[in-house]
């Protein structure tokens, strides 16, 4: 795996990103902008599950409206995340924060498209307020810890 990371960083495209003074910066900037859109799309549903947002609309309606923005921003995050990873692959691979971020990302994606989806799209009233609130808080907590670990890679990890 370690050798693979070194090989990836040696790809011409990886080196081009790393050596350019602006490609990497712009990719980072759009990664953050995608994160803001993602946070918005996640919060729209989670705040509704908490009973604090759009309480006049069924959660399933809000979730259906948020879906294209959620999927679109996840795709944008991945597309802007990959160039950052390949250009710094060996350092990222060694970073504890990067490893946590990837593990949490896997967990949150599975969680979002199974448990959270089940609760958000259920007929109104199927799950109690307590269950909905826990589902929302876990979602917010997972996404926030991904953002936190992502920011910490830059400070302590790489």
């Amino acid at each position, binding site marked *: 795996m370690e050798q693979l990371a070194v090989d990836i960083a040696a790809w011409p495209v990886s080196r081009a990103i790393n050596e350019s*003074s*602006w490609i990497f*910066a*712009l990719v*980072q*900037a*759009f*990664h*953050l*902008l995608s*994160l*803001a*859109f*993602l*946070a*918005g*799309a*996640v*919060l*729209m549903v989670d*705040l509704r599950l908490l009973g*604090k*947002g*759009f*309480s*006049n*609309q069924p959660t399933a*309606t*809000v979730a*259906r*409206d*948020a879906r*294209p*923005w959620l999927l679109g921003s996840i795709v944008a995050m991945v597309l802007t995340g990959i160039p950052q990873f390949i250009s710094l692959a060996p350092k990222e691979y060694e970073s504890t924060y990067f490893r946590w971020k990837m593990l949490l990302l896997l967990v949150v994606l599975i969680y979002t498209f199974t448990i959270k989806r089940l609760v958000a799209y259920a007929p109104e009233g199927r799950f109690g307020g307590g269950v909905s609130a826990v589902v929302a808080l876990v979602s917010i907590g997972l996404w*926030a810890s991904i*953002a*936190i670990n992502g*920011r*910490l890679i830059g*400070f*302590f990890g790489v």
Partner: protein
Amino acid sequence: MVDIALGDYFAPLRSLFETVAEFESSIALRESQYMMPWVFVFHVVSMCMFAGTILMMDLRLLGIGYMKTPFSQVQRKLFPWQMAAMLFSTATGLALVWGNPLNYVTNIIFWVKMLAMGIAGVNALAFHFITEYTLVDWDAGQTPPLGAKLAGAISIVLWGNVVIAGRLMPYALTWFRE
């Protein structure tokens, strides 16, 4: 490197920022090993909550998102969250500048960000005092009027600019001369 002698334009502000840099609280923030990274982390998280909920509201204004919910509901329900997140990101943002004022005073990208935030504020007020008066006519409708679409588009561009500028700030020293 682009040659912009920003130092000259910001000479009066520079002495103010230099004064702040000498405060004990500023030195303490700057010299603590863990304080600043964590302030940064909370700035990013609260910014995401703020910008995220603003952007979703803007999509509704543009008529391309959350169209099953009347705009007034989107706005009313999100408002307290937007304000709480704004307070938090303002506080952490002030702490960042307080701890390293000289890094910011001649940073052109920092001033672009501040300007964009100022204009975004004016845009929000203009929407509130002008376009919102006609809200009853289009609240639940599928095509918001031009004024609403314009407010949403301007807001997305400006807040997008704020987020992007925030991330690009550290590169200002590589790209521009002080």
